[in-house]
């Protein structure tokens, strides 16, 4: 067998013990990798006592690579993390690019399971066979960039070359509920507050250096597939657009379709949107290209602001989601300020979607008099006030003043602000919706509603397929031509997007951007050539389906019910103007059809017989469904 490193690390921070367990190949075959491994291992650890607080020491944390991670292929650098989310209180996971996953496998490990809590700040040092829990006193309090630089500088002579760092910043240490964890200063595990879980464990970072090799079971076959894919990639306009402008290319394309939320989701048409589009980014802040391990797409961009109030050193450029949350959502036309807010989020370690969306929510509260300058430490949170947006971002990272209120996310802030603040929320399961408007594609509403980790466009392939960037000809639902601005057949579409998506971007793990041109035959052939297994489409769909039920079940186990699948009024209000004028998803119908197809009861929990059929009888027992 190929592809896997063959071991999983179990690190207990309370006892300080480290155990290396061999990867069971029958387990690998069944669950493929990534969250297929991670969610299952997590569930096994908590199923006897699931009543845990996300920030308590008994909340385990899983980090898993996939079988293709570490191979020099486009869109194959991804890896995953998972745990109970402090933002939502439900299952949370995140999918990351960069270099860490590859290096971890080269060191000999497919994943890491972290349990317990350290008494003092610590980090995990991995240099091939050497794995140690070390004191992080020297790094605690430093931001992400400082930590990364200091660790590499301190440890590279010991490891013979620079390792790669995955670390939290002050936001994680301060338990900001949407703190991220970041690899190599730019590749973020952004959503769901995973960084706060590390902070609660006094766990600062993982430094890894790996010099081993991961072999494919059939390297000749893999080379043949790579050759075949050259033409596929050359023909892909989506890949060309990513190469040219990165994800912000969507500002141009998405705004044509009314997909870009504006003024906290009150508009989807804005004359000034081009001020924050890819053209302005290129003219004003662009400073180079970057990529993830082994990927030629290079969609990561660098930014620099050389002078002015938003001056920032060269670093990661804002992604589309960040441009929208700190830009169009706040009516902010200043691209330099968006780059600066992104820089602050990267340094403190915070999710730019929740952070920007929470600030947009706060601006609406301010504009409507629910809060005043006396609440916001003198900051005038008006629409388009770039200085105020940047200042508040910094306050959130420090958890200082009004920033401390916003550091728990907009749903918690609305409870504290009171009045009609809840009307301005855009959250599902307390997670702020991403920057894709369901009024432009109705299936997004359902995708956000039933995503186990809360409103998320990456929780399945629905955004890719309904949005149009991906088509899977081998699966009828993923290649059908759906009527635009309609809720017809979106439940069926979502189910298929979840089943295939769990395989594609959670288990295997392909990138939802760089691997978009692959059809199912190509994706499965890659996994088979690497692992030596002989997966069929039915088999990977079964593994994907099982993982979806497991993630949903974990969220149910943590208390989610049908009421938590509701889409907020703000997203479900018809707009009078713009590309989506008059369009409104029929969420009740889609949810009803979805529950029926998924075999879920009226509480939004999968039935026992459905779970048992998927080999999840123990999940049914844990949910007391017997």
């Amino acid at each position: 067998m190929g592809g896997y490193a063959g071991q999983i690390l179990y690190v207990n921070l309370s006892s300080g013990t480290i155990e290396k367990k061999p990867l069971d190949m029958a387990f690998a075959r069944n669950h493929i990798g990534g969250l297929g491994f991670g969610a299952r291992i997590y569930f096994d650890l908590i199923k006897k006592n699931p009543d845990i607080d996300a920030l308590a020491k008994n909340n385990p944390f899983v980090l898993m690579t996939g079988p293709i991670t570490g191979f020099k292929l486009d869109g194959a650098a991804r890896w995953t993390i998972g745990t109970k989310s402090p933002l939502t209180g439900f299952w949370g996971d995140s999918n990351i690019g960069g270099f860490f996953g590859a290096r971890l496998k080269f060191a000999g490990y497919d994943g890491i399971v972290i349990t317990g809590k350290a008494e003092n700040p610590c980090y995990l040092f991995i240099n091939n066979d050497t794995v140690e829990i070390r004191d992080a006193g020297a790094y605690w309090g430093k931001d992400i960039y400082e930590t990364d630089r200091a660790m590499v500088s301190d440890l590279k002579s010991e490891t013979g070359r620079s390792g790669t760092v995955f670390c939290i910043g002050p936001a994680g240490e301060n338990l900001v509920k949407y703190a991220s964890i970041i690899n190599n200063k730019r590749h973020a595990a952004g959503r769901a507050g995973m960084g706060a879980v590390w902070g609660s464990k006094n766990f600062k970072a993982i430094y890894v250096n790996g010099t081993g090799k991961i072999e494919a079971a059939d390297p000749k076959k893999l080379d043949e597939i790579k050759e075949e894919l050259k033409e596929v990639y050359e023909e892909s306009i989506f890949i060309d657009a990513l190469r040219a402008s990165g994800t912000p290319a969507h500002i141009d394309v998405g705004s044509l379709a009314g997909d870009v939320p504006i003024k906290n989701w009150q508009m989807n048409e804005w004359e000034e949107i081009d001020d924050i589009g890819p053209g302005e980014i290129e003219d004003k802040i662009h400073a180079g290209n970057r990529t993830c391990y082994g990927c030629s797409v290079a969609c990561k961009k660098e930014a620099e602001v050389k002078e002015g109030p938003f001056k920032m050193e060269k670093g990661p450029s804002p992604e589309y989601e960040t441009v929208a949350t700190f830009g169009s959502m706040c009516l902010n036309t200043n691209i330099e300020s968006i780059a600066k807010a992104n820089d602050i989020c990267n340094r403190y370690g915070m999710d730019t979607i929740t952070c920007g969306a929470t600030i947009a929510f706060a601006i609406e509260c301010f504009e409507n008099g629910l809060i005043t300058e006396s609440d916001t430490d003198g900051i005038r949170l008006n629409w388009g006030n770039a200085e105020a947006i940047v200042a508040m971002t910094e306050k959130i990272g420090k958890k200082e003043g009004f920033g401390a209120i916003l550091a728990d996310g907009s749903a918690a802030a609305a409870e504290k602000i009171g009045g009609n603040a809840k009307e301005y929320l855009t959250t599902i399961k307390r997670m702020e919706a991403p920057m894709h408007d369901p009024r432009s594609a109705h299936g997004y509403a359902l995708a956000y509603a039933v995503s186990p980790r809360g409103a998320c466009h990456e929780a399945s392939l629905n955004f890719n397929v309904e949005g149009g960037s991906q088509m899977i000809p081998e699966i009828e639902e993923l290649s059908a031509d759906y009527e635009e601005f309609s809720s017809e057949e979106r439940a069926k579409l979502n189910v298929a997007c979840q089943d295939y998506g769990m395989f594609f971007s959670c288990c295997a793990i392909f990138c939802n951007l760089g691997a978009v041109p692959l059809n199912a035959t190509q994706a499965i052939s890659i996994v088979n050539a690497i692992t030596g297994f002989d997966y069929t489409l039915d088999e990977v769909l079964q593994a994907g389906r099982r993982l979806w039920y497991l993630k949903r079940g974990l969220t149910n186990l943590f208390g989610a019910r049908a009421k938590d699948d509701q889409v907020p009024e703000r997203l479900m209000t018809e707009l009078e103007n713009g590309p989506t004028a008059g369009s409104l998803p029929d969420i009740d119908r889609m949810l009803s059809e979805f529950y029926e197809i998924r075999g879920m009861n009226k509480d939004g929990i999968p039935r026992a017989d459905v779970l048992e059929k998927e080999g999840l009888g123990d999940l049914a027992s844990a949910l007391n469904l017997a």
Partner: protein
Amino acid sequence: MGLFESSEKFEEVLGGFFRELAENKQIADKLLKSKLIIRFSYTDPDLIIVVDCSGDKLDVRPHDTETKATVEMSMTADVAHKFWFGKVNLTKALTRKEMVAKGPIPKILKLLPAIKPSYAMYPKYLEDNGYSQYNIY
């Protein structure tokens, strides 16, 4: 059979709209900055139109098969018609090859902000010029 009964009719309607865009300073100036020469090849009914942004003035040339274009765009007449209403999911159309674009993609994408205002113009253009039967949205 598509919405347009003949190549001549389609040229009259779409070519006329392109010429109206060429007269619109706000749009034309932005397109001229691109310096692109775009050849649109339509089918059902067949039509070729070149939009030349390489000079000082936007030049619309139907049936021009000779000029070397920097961008080649192919689609059916119905997809083109729907596009100018702003009703085509561009990403999906390109993925599914309902629209095929060849040329410098970054430069092509830069045209999108420039043509955005034209979506509002198209239905009005149809109404004002006696083509209301094609105003399908």
